[in-house]
């Protein structure tokens, strides 16, 4: 996925899909650099962390009851 940021046409398509046509027109270098950063994969996860581990914030329906 990170290679996508090196292809100007892919960056243009992604930027337009995200509603960034104006930003792309005014600041093409900024959008290209942003695509590189945003599409860069995360570093290697620590041992034991996989795609089926729970994320840090866990949905808790009880929270909404106790809010008010």
């Amino acid at each position, binding site marked *: 996925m990170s290679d996508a940021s090196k292809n100007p046409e892919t960056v243009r398509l992604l*930027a337009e899909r995200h509603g960034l046509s104006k930003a792309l027109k*005014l600041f093409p270098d*900024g959008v290209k650099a942003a695509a590189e950063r945003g599409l860069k994969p995360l570093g290697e996860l620590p041992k034991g962390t996989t795609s089926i581990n*729970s*994320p*840090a914030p866990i949905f808790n329906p009880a929270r909404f009851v106790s809010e008010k």
Partner: protein
Amino acid sequence: MTGLAYLTVAEGAELLRTRKLSPVEWTRALLERITSIDSNYNAFLVVTADKALAQAKAAEVEIAKGQWRGPMHGVPYAAKDIFDIEGMATTCHSKIRKDHRATSDAFVVKKLHEAGAVLLGKVALHEFATGGPAFDLPWPPARNPWNRDIHPGGSSSGSGAALAAGMAPAALGTDTGGSVRNPATCCGIVGMKPTYGAVSLAGVFPLTYSLDHVGPMTRTVEDNAIFFHALAGHDPEDPTTAKRETPDCLKDLKSGLKGVRIGVIEHFYKEDAEADPDQVRAIEQAVVLLQQLGASVKTIRLSPLALWTDCNRTIHQAESYAIHERDVQERPEDFAALTRNRLLPGAFVSAAKYIRAQQLRGALCREFAEAMRDLDAVVTLSSLLLPCRIDDPAAIARTYDQQCRLVFNVTGTPAISVPTGFTDSGVPLAMQIAGRAFDEPMVYRVAQAYCEAAGTCIGADGKTQPRLVATTRTAAE
């Protein structure tokens, strides 16, 4: 009364309580000083002189009647312009928010009002608490009182500048990846990022949802603990605040370090990244001093700094973009270039990458908690490098992630930046002290012991004060 510019909160509170100093006198002296020197430092966006004098007068009357509310009663402070104050714009230092008007006070502002504190005004920041010191915004960037040409740190840049220049004894900041501790580091002051949930975020314009923290900024550790107490506590309007009593950070503040176990996260600045030799020398001397003060010290290892950075930045990018998406799409030209460049990457972060960053965050939090099982505190660097020139956006962008602060936004645990001295050319140096969740008392205790022994905090003695550029001499001097 001389020396009001660098009077500490603790000293001032005692003088106010015993009626040896009037809140009006203190406030007026600082307002005069702001008028005299701030055109050189741009710390304040708005000075609320009339309101400040009215609050100071009210405090004076109450104290005279024996109705002293506590150590913040009659004490002046400044607020980063990201906190709502009823009737005022919360500009976030942005053209986009120039016409905003807040309809109520942020929870912490209400708390400070109830404590009798005196608001001097709202201070500068990096636009929307991100980006950097920008010259393409309606207001100029705050300048570093130690050297106007170097970066004052941010995003709570005005808070850091106001404190170092003796324009306020306390200031509110916010911290998502180090925005309280970075200006503390660059301006030679003390900045605390408390535990996530210890201080309410209600009425504070968000940068992210899960990494933002409100933090007290002062010139001394004791002042910071006093200020933290005035801010902390459960807020029914903010579901992220913890329903627990705020621990007493003053009780054991001066108990020393005998028996305290401290870990040093050395690999962050010796293996994972290249650090400035002056920063490294200063923290090494600090570690020796901590041992001499009675602490047991050992080196510990966590995941590499780059992994913590990836985790923080991915969450930061995704959450901040969710907040600013419409403006980035419709009026990108209205942001400063530095801000726009920080917000745009969020458009390209996939949902899967964001979830993986949250999974990584869980793993890193568990790792830190495990490391802290037989420790009371850890120390590591704050900034890896010295502050660059304020007018060099390329250097600002390049050095943005060269820091160890964002680690403790990932864990949500308390971390304080304290001064460790100066380079030969007078640039402030600093380190962080961090602790377990809700163990602010231990973090303050270690910080107090170190700063007291090292004598590195800005003080009234004049030895550790910046040489300021002033147009006239004021009563505060």
